[in-house]
């Protein structure tokens, strides 16, 4: 029984109450993933589990048994080269205090996969066909689960647009 986090296996915690978020932050020292509200309301705790973005604060660590988890610490390459989205976040100033940033980045990276798969969103006009290109309306709707109190939204949307336009994910 183990959770694979950024390619490394970790045992499950002894206390079944511990969330995936607290496992990362308090037991494993992976403090990149942030605790914003602990009740599923802000998205700062977003990580990627088996390719899907989820809230680690509402995931019991034991539920991630056998799953592959990617956190912000795993987004940059082994040699330290930043992920293209991390680069564009800096370039477009998609952050100020930086506390929502890891959650935004993990959420956006997984969101791109959903988009490319053709998954619709609430604002997708043609539900059967799927999203018709990358629009700001689609990006904002799909990123609505990540709050930012500093107001860096415009930079975040621009950073995501650039990444989508560059064809990278």
């Amino acid at each position: 029984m183990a959770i694979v986090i950024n390619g490394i296996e970790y045992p499950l915690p002894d206390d079944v109450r511990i969330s995936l978020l607290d496992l990362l932050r308090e037991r494993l020292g992976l403090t990149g993933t942030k605790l914003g509200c602990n009740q599923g309301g802000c998205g700062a705790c977003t990580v990627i589990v088996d390719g899907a973005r989820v809230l680690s604060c509402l995931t019991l660590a034991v539920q991630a048994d056998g799953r592959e988890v990617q956190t912000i610490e795993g987004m940059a390459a082994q040699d330290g080269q930043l992920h293209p989205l991390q680069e564009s976040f800096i370039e477009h100033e998609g952050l100020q205090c930086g506390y929502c940033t890891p959650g935004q980045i993990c959420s956006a990276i997984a969101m791109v996969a959903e988009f490319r798969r053709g998954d619709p969103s609430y604002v997708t006009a043609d539900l059967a066909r799927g999203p018709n290109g990358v629009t700001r309306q689609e990006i904002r709707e799909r990123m609505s689960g990540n709050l930012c109190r500093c107001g860096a939204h415009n930079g975040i949307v621009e950073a995501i647009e650039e990444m989508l336009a560059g064809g990278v994910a």
Partner: protein
Amino acid sequence: MRPFDYRRAADQTEALSIAGAGPARYLGGGTNLVDLMRQNIEAPAALVDVSRLPGTIADTPNGGLMIGAAVRNNVVAAHPAVRTRYPMLSRAILAGASAQIRNMATVGGNILQRTRCAYFYDAAGSCCNKREPGAGCDAIDGFNRYHAIFGASEHCIATHPSDMCVALAALGATVHLAGAAGERSVPLLDFHRLPGDHPEIETVLRPGELITAIELASSPAAANSRYRKVRDRSSYAFALVSVAAGVEVAAGKIADVRIALGGVAPKPWRATTAEGVLRGQAPTKARFLAAADAELAAAKSFEGNAFKIELAKRTIVAVLGELTGADA
């Protein structure tokens, strides 16, 4: 959070057997139950994780669809059969929560999610008959913007928060259950209970019973359907009022119409009065208004939510107009 035992079931038999051995709650995606446990609203002694039970979406012999209870919300919403044959269901799911939560939540868990009434959640400081029968209801004279205009009782005015269930109600879905006494099925419309004198009893589930699947019947009205959610912000917020509707027009007359309302009642509210006014009639805006008026005539509002009555009427009219192209 109180310490609890945790076991994960690989299949239905195992799930029922663990649950049958002692008091346990089923855990799906955890997006509601884990939150309730952390807030000390729920304190189960044991959890049976059923999120990895096999879950599929498959055609039924009579042209309908069977959706496994363990299927994640986002998978249902993105499924081609759901998008083409039951678009209101896809849109309703997409209207709910956030992408992360839709990735985690299961169909079964979505059906069983509990109200987000602020007084229900305030275990330390507020009176709530759902949490503590007989304690009183602080919402009735309190902040009740998000509360019911139908189906409330003097003991509870909370609303059911699910968007998916509103569409399932409009579609006349069937809930399949399995328990110690065997399998049975219940119409979704009868699955949730109104508060009455016992707001603490929210569904007809028997102890240990597991939701196994949702079954949908096919119909032209299901295929020509929408979901419209009106809320305080444009995304990631609960409904003030929502409308799931589907219409079949044949020879210029409404052959079939389904309307259900969300955000207005302790369970998804099937607008049968409005449907009755419309069936067999030509689709016109005046008729839509008459139907909405008839349905909302029985609404009873509170100080903070009186606006919902007019809002519900307008939303019903708007959605029916979009579905039929009727503007006047």
